[in-house]
């Protein structure tokens, strides 16, 4: 006799749920085992005195997002299209918002 549909469905769903749970467990395990990696990274940050992620490398004024000031064009407004797409992804640093108010 063929399996009942509900058996198949519940089986598939249980598998997916287990996969999700496994994903969580695996992820937390990876996070735990990557502690030494982060220790190395923070040591590097300390050594090189870094302040930013190397994520927006298209122009010099987008490279150090947290170091920019109000006169660098990128920070005039996060909507500034000439810096698309980076300008559309990140917010202006908080010290700018606090000291100069929201610009857009």
């Amino acid at each position, binding site marked *: 006799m063929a399996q009942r549909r509900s058996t198949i469905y519940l089986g598939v769903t249980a598998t997916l749920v287990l996969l999700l749970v496994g994903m969580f467990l695996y992820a*937390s395990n990876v996070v735990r085992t990557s502690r030494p990696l982060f220790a190395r990274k923070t040591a590097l940050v300390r050594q090189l005195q870094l302040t930013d992620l190397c994520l927006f490398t298209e122009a010099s004024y987008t490279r150090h997002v947290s170091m920019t000031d109000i006169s660098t064009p990128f920070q005039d407004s996060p909507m500034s299209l000439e810096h698309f797409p980076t300008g559309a992804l990140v917010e202006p640093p*908080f010290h700018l*918002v*606090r000291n100069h108010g929201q610009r857009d």
Partner: protein
Amino acid sequence: MILNPGILALFITSLLISLMTIYAACHGIQILRRWDIASGSELQLILERRTYLISTIVTYFLAFQLVSLFLFIQTADSICHLFVGAMCAVGTLTVNSFGYPTLLLKVLTFIIAGLWLILNYADNRGYDYPLIRAKYLLLLILAPFVLAETVVQCFYFFGLTPDIITSCCGTLYSQSARGIASEILALPVIPAKILFSVSMLATCAAGMRLFLNGKGVYRLAALSGITFVVSIISMISFISLYIYEMPSHHCPFCIVQKEYGYVGYPLYLLLLSGTVLGLGVGLLQPFRNKKSLEHIIPAIQQKCAGAAVVAFVLFTSIVSWQILVSSLKML
């Protein structure tokens, strides 16, 4: 307002829930006004069918409210870095004066919705809709709270502007601070432990008595309510300390975090369900004399009492287990 995904999710959901509640309440009013069980008219038939819709809506509401309760705490915790001085959810909730009221309303609406479902369960077993009036009056009580929750939550989220200095865990719960939180802390560990054990024991005893010979209904209801409050107080004054293994971190929210094995989820879930079931027993008692429910209500009460005892016992065991395995030793 911060455009955080969690905030957006809570915002959208509470709007949807409010809409559904208003819709249900409107039908509820019509049912209260036009209900006539003796009539065979088509209107009566339509009204009876609406009861299905309303109980479906409240059931979904209960489920969503539970998730939203936890998401609210989780979100508050995850955005605390945006506020100077906020170390965890407590800090975020004190950013403006709407944080705690929102949480309180969420808990309250969850409990009322749970009670409504217990009434509904009993009503569906009577052949003449015996509790229809009580049920829909309770729905009309629930609705304003749900709307209030949505409005207060809106105020809370719109009032969240990052980088305002807020009191963090340390200052909110420091001995010198005023307000309810510090009064709780002023309750030292030993009296809190005694209070907790006594109220738990009394509640479980009352529950067992009701389960075995059907007596002491109001006692169980009252004790469940008291135990809920006492447990929350104990959570802040000593349970959390054992879980964090830190003698001064009196935070009731961080226990839902991953660092503590998500132990907060089962704890709060058990506490909430025990309370709802215990209170529900009392809520059913006035209707015991309805003819169609003569035999049904005692059976439901027995079931609820049993389940409440199980929930409270499990809650206490998890707490005791946490205390036992904790590296923190206090008297």
